[in-house]
């Protein structure tokens, strides 16, 4: 009787995959694809997703999709939607784009009297003078986002939270509790902690609609390693964080298994890895991710996903291509024995 573990590679064993490789763990997954220079990449998600966008945008050898010009200091994504923390928020903006009907309740008065979009309250620093201006800005924003959804070759989406604030009854989901920046008494909201099945359903629905619009799109999922700033559940924030991340992480695996066009990049595992002794989180708050750790993640991202033929690996790894190169300068039979 043979031992089935004997034939497994080193990455399958804790001793070699983690303990021995602790300074350079590269948690490979079996399902990957290559991003070609011509692929249009759209990014969306929680605040951690901005790191991916920031990194990709700097490269002039890939096509980072910019549907709307960003203004200084705004969250960096493919359009000015701000942070999209939940699957329901992603589905909501997609539905709104496709229907062409702007959320009539999107304008909310800030504490300073200016109006902002309740779906992206921090995107217009100075706000608008009139509620009508918010609606008009949202209309053109949605048009740009619709185009991005329809033209992107790759959507990188980072799932951030299970907790959210929603309108009474849950018809609309907000990125941030409106009470944080507005004292508009007419606007009611309630807390919602989405369950696994609700999020899975939202992701399925989003994917079905997205691929109906854009059949060739690939979706690359990640989970934000950034812990919750606060929880509104009755649990300790650490418990709530672990719950949230665990649910989102499993959603990713389920989606990857169920759909050929869905992939997962393990940035979450690289950052939130508690086994290597050194934290990847900023010591001053244990929440923000250390830039060096982000750099490591993105280097690995490039290694896994960027098209080797594009020369994109050259800067970081001048001889990376040698791994696959056929040496033209020595005479070697292409095969022996076959």
């Amino acid at each position, binding site marked *: 009787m*043979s031992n*089935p573990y*004997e*034939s*497994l*590679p*080193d*990455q399958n064993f804790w001793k*070699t*995959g983690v303990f*021995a*490789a602790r*300074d*350079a763990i*590269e948690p*490979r997954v*079996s399902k990957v694809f290559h991003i070609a220079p011509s692929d249009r990449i759209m990014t969306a998600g929680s605040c951690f997703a901005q790191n991916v966008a920031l990194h990709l945008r700097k*490269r*002039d*050898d890939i096509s980072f999709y910019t549907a709307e010009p960003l203004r200084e200091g705004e969250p960096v994504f493919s359009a000015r939607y701000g942070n999209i923390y939940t699957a329901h928020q992603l589905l909501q903006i997609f539905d709104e784009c496709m229907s062409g009907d702007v959320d009539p309740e999107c304008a909310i008065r800030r504490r300073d009297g200016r109006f902002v979009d309740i779906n992206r309250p921090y995107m217009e620093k100075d706000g608008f003078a009139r509620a009508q201006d918010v609606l008009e800005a949202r209309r053109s924003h949605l048009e740009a986002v619709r185009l991005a959804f329809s033209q992107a070759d790759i959507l990188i989406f980072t799932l951030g939270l299970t907790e959210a604030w929603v309108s009474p009854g849950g018809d609309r989901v907000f990125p941030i509790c409106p009470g944080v920046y507005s004292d508009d008494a007419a606007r009611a909201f309630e807390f919602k902690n989405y369950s696994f099945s609700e999020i899975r359903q939202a992701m399925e629905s989003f994917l079905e609609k997205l691929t109906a619009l854009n059949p060739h799109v690939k979706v690359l999922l990640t989970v934000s390693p950034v812990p919750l700033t606060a929880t509104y559940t009755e649990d300790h924030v650490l418990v709530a964080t672990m719950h949230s991340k665990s649910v989102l992480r499993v959603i990713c695996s389920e989606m990857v298994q169920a759909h050929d066009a869905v992939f997962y990049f393990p940035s979450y595992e690289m950052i939130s890895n508690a086994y290597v002794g050194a934290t990847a989180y900023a010591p001053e708050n244990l929440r923000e991710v250390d830039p060096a750790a982000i750099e490591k993640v993105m280097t690995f991202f490039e290694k896994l996903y960027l098209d080797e*033929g*594009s*020369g*994109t690996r*050259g*800067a*970081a790894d*001048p*001889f*990376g*291509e*040698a*791994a*696959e*190169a*056929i*040496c*033209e*300068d*020595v*005479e*070697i*039979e*292409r*095969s*022996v*024995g*076959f």
Partner: protein
Amino acid sequence: MKAVIVSNCNAKAYYNYLAALFPDWDTRYVLKTEADAWIASGHEKFLEFLSEVDVFIGLPESHEKLFPKHLNKAAVQVLLPSFIFMGGRPDCVLLAGITSATRVGVIHSRIAAAAFVAGKSVEEAAALYCARHFEALGYFDSYAGSRRQLLDSYRPFGVDLEEEFEAWRGYGDFMYTPSHPQTRLLFDVLHKALAGKGIVTGREPGFVAQSRAGFEDYLARGIIWPVYPEIAERLALSNCKTRWRSSAAKGAGTEFDLRVMLERSYASFAARPDARRRITVALGGKEKLRELAGEQPAV
């Protein structure tokens, strides 16, 4: 026993090793690019052999494609990344799609490429190959980092080459290009990897040493990218190749000097319409390019 090797130019060395130490094995090899094509086309003989092999030796990337779909799940798997050591040759870079001054492959000088983009003449570029510029670029300090990178590249696969590296250091310059070592080094790598799997334990040391001594160094017939004299001197590297050489396996194997290397490189860059973009990307952006071209002090 059946063994298969799926790798790059290292494959033949691994094959020769098994042929020498395990002559009764049915050992076969295929270059990874060929294997990819065979997998895509469903090459029956290859896939059948894969399903029966006892030992698989290959690049981690090739393994990912073969396992678990085609490879015998009970096979002992020896994953070995490419042997890449930039230590004495920190100026080398691969520029995809741009023919090398050596006439084959895409290996280039980073300084030459940057000088071309900066609009420098061949004479101006040649003047950059000096100790002061190498110092500014950190070329003299890169040996230790390259050593660490090489050892780290094998460590995740259970192969610790610390001791071997110290022995190799005694050979002086043991590379022909950053990806072509003397093949006796590949002998050592595979020997260590197989020992880790319990496969060569018990082999008579004299026999192993004899096999190693007679090991065919086919990579010596390939192109040569020299260690620049200033670097060789600073690193106290002995046995350095001091001139470039085209492949002796593909022709006369003629040697040439810095000026010829630059002239040929410039001609290659000029012939490629998108060379500037490719070079800029490969060298890490415009700022880095200026540093390499000597247009601003390296920080």
